């Protein structure tokens, strides 16, 4: 969902911002001192732009919805289960998958910085890294969900996972009704990034994507 933009829009600007000048200066110094190769920096950016993103998490969720044995393994040891899927095997050792149920809704935050399962969801959106979400998610999650136009039943337990260490959390949302017989590929289309953070639900069949 975040790959189809042109992020080089600043090329048209004739004036560089102070920050842009400082960033360029730092890269020049690091290059001149032989610490980094600029082409390697280009390659890092390209890898982030093409290899990671919420499509990885969506594949995992869709598989869990259709394969009970995989779901069981995923909830027992997220890293190990995902490691068995060739296409998203770079998740590292410390991924914990938490399941939403009618009784319990999970939500993930990092109050101290911006910890986020990059390998599953890509780079975090600005709101995830900004003060309003980081401050309120642990105290007033229903208020935060209202900012996303999400309402939960009054008696649903809300469990907020504050990512204070190198463990990473991925929410397994509930499978939408009306998707009986759907393939993994079809189901993956319904899985939004926010539904895997816990600030949204998957799309419902027939709704515009």
């Amino acid at each position, binding site marked *: 969902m975040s790959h189809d933009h042109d992020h080089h829009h600043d090329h048209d600007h004739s004036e560089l911002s102070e920050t842009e000048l400082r960033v*360029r200066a*730092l890269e020049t*110094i690091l290059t001149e001192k032989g610490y*980094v190769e600029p082409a390697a920096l280009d390659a890092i950016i390209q890898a982030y732009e093409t290899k990671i993103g919420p499509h990885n998490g969506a594949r995992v969720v869709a598989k869990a919805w259709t394969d009970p044995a995989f779901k069981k393994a995923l909830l027992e040891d997220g890293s190990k289960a995902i490691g068995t899927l060739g296409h998203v095997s770079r998740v590292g050792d410390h991924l914990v998958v938490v399941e939403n149920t009618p009784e319990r809704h999970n939500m993930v935050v990092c109050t*101290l910085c911006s910890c986020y399962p990059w390998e599953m969801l890509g780079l975090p959106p600005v709101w995830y890294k*900004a003060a309003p979400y980081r401050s*309120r998610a642990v105290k007033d999650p*229903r208020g935060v969900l209202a900012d996303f136009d999400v309402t939960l039943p009054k008696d649903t*337990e809300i469990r907020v996972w504050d990512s204070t*260490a190198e463990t990473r959390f991925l929410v397994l949302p509930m499978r939408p009704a009306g998707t009986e017989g759907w393939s993994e590929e079809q189901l993956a289309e319904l899985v939004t990034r926010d539904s895997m953070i816990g600030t949204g639900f998957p799309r419902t069949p027939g709704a515009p994507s």
Partner: protein
Amino acid sequence: MNGVHDMGGMDGFGKVEPEPNEPMFHEEWESRVLAMVRAMGAAGAFNIDTSRFYRETLPPHVYLSSSYYKKWFLGLEEMLIEKGYLTREEVTAGHAMQPAKTLKHGKFDLGQVERIMVRGKFARPAPAPAKFNIGDRVRARNIHPTTHTRLPRYVRGHVGVVELNHGCHVFPDTAAMELGESPQWLYTVVFEGRDLWGEDGDPTLKVSIDAFEPYLDPA
């Protein structure tokens, strides 16, 4: 340190504002900052905990008024200066003027890129048995180190229950200060929302943190 980065439970920051179709980067320089941080970290100039500590030690007004990647940039520049990889004179001049300092893992070149796209490993062999079992009641210690810690203020002094044991991990409190990895047991500890936020708190809320063993006392 009790910095403004430790935001859990603070009021007054306003609504969360999701951006529809948000781009991965809002300015091209943001992508260069991300790449430089990843490259210099992989080359051995600093570890992830040290880089977090340098962002936390930005002056509070700078931390709160800077965009995410601006904080990354400011933290990176200061850290590289303090660790001796570049000088303030070089930053002012915009060019290298002094000989380079040797990087632990050498120059970051194209051959290194694949390596950093695999998430790092933070688990370490256990130096001692775990003190706590799943289900144990524990109290988050009332500690206020002026250095790096991952124990957020909003749980300090409160009692929670050990829910998961993640094994022994690198201890950020020492790693950030370059005092060694000092592996510690890491637990998910869950707190009742009302224990944290009082009687007016959401009765359906439970909040967990991942807590290193030195953050916890038996309760």
